[in-house]
């Protein structure tokens, strides 16, 4: 019962304490000699351009959301594909049909977005 979970709680406490001590000790004991280049925002080694609070077009957000469709597709198709041989031996054509229907419905959603102009950039 609950007593079984005590090791997990202990691990969490130890991990949090260890991480906290490491970070804190570097803050407390580390040398601090800031100069202009050190406190600059990091942009892959280049000199930073503009502020960090840029406004980003909502289109990127839309694309990111649409990407979820294919993420979900992969999550479901991958285990099914790995097991397909044994599924096919057991169920024959019925191993294939449900995934086929699932993909049709999923791609219909994508088709809907495409035809409604969800991916038009302007």
């Amino acid at each position, binding site marked *: 019962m609950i007593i079984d979970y005590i090791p997990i709680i202990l691990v969490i406490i130890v991990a949090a304490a260890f991480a906290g001590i490491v970070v804190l000790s570097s803050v407390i004991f580390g040398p601090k000699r800031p100069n202009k280049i050190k406190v600059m925002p990091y942009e892959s080694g280049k000199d930073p351009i503009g502020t960090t609070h840029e406004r980003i077009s909502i289109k990127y957000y839309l694309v990111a959301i649409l990407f979820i469709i294919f993420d979900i597709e992969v999550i479901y198709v991958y285990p099914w594909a790995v097991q397909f041989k044994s599924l096919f031996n057991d*169920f024959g054509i*019925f191993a294939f049909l*449900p995934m086929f229907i699932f993909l*049709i*419905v999923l791609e*219909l959603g994508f*088709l*809907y977005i495409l*035809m*409604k102009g969800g991916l038009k950039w302007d």
Partner: protein
Amino acid sequence: MPANNYEYFLLLPHIVLSVGIVLSILIEIFTRKGKEVLPWFSSLLFLFVGFYSIINIDKNFFIFGGMVEVGGRASIFNFIFNIAALLTVLASTDYIKKYGINYSEYYILIQSSVLGMMVMAMAHDILVIFMGLELMSICFYILAGLNRKRSSNNEASLKYFLLGSFATGFIVYGIALVYGTTGSTSIQNIFENFMQYFNNILFIVGMLLLLIGFSFKIAAVPFHMWVPDVYQGSATSVTGLMSTAGKAAAFSVLLILLGTSLSYSSPIVFRNYFSVIAVLSTLVGSIIAIAQTNLKRMLAYSSIAHAGYMAIGLAAGNNYSFAGITFYLAAYVFMNIGAFTIISLIEGKDETRLTLNSYAGLNKKSPFLAAMMSLFMFALAGIPPMAGFFGKYYVFFGAIKSDLTWLAIVGVLSSLISVYFYLRVVVYVYFMNENEQFEIEKSVGSNLAISLTGLLVLLFGIFPDSLMNLIVNFIK
């Protein structure tokens, strides 16, 4: 698949509706005539699915390894959902043009939400229930905010989404705890060994979380905070569907849970919970509704009170009260959709005529609407020749059978309070001088929906046995 082909054939209503949704999307994206075609297409779909289900009510089986029940109780609920959606579609063809949400997605979302409700009503497995619940709720979140240019719509949608997902969180956590303690998601398995699990604190917490989540969905006090704002902010036709079919779907799940527990042990363990919910909902709903002058808000509080009356039946926990709740839900669906349709005709383009004042002297403008409005108000108040009376009668009868007479008395008292604000509408309609001049819109679909609901409310009120015999045979 292990399931044989006959099992798929039994799921025909659900398959037809799913294919209908796919076809609707195809119609919309390829022909671009969705706005003209889809009202008729979805009406036919709902008509077919509803009547096919009710005709095949005798084929009552558990299929897919007991996960799903077809026929019987599920058929009755399928009928209720589909007729509610059909009436909503009829009533909203003209309304959504006025409101500015004339998208074909409106119909597709209604179809999807009805599919979710049907999945909820047939499920005997917690995960299937959850799937249906999410399908229904997500469609409702979108429907509530379909007109994104109206701030009231945005507010309603956001509030509904945040609080609804909060409730869903409760339900998921409850499912996790119940599955963790029992090792099964099948409601049958869980209740078979109910007394054995009952000493386990985690199981009790899980069950309570499930009940709290569904109390959110049926809009019972103290989980009712979202109801008035959401019902007032959404489009009136959407509110009509949310407050009736959505509530019926949540109740169908509670009926499955308690009904299964009835056949193995006694649902008496839930009695205290539902008694508290029932007393609070009936009293708070009825008393706060008195202070409302906005009709949509008043009906929202009345819907809280109605959830309370039905919770009395849940607290009673016997076959009489479960059959009574099902009858009550059927009656409530028709009278509420009728009332909301009348509101949608009166409210005008920018919802400027929602208050009681706009109903003053309605009798002079349109005797038909005035008569129907008073019919629905009498039915909601529970005055005998209408269906609402028998709904309350059966539920209170069930409560008395379980020695919960005090609960039935509280119910009767609070329905006495509610008569005040229902009849106030009738007084405004017939006995006040009109103080606003406006034309009432002509809408064939809405008038048809109002006439149909009025007819059904009277029919179920005068011949309650016609529906009640059907329900009693199949609520087990």
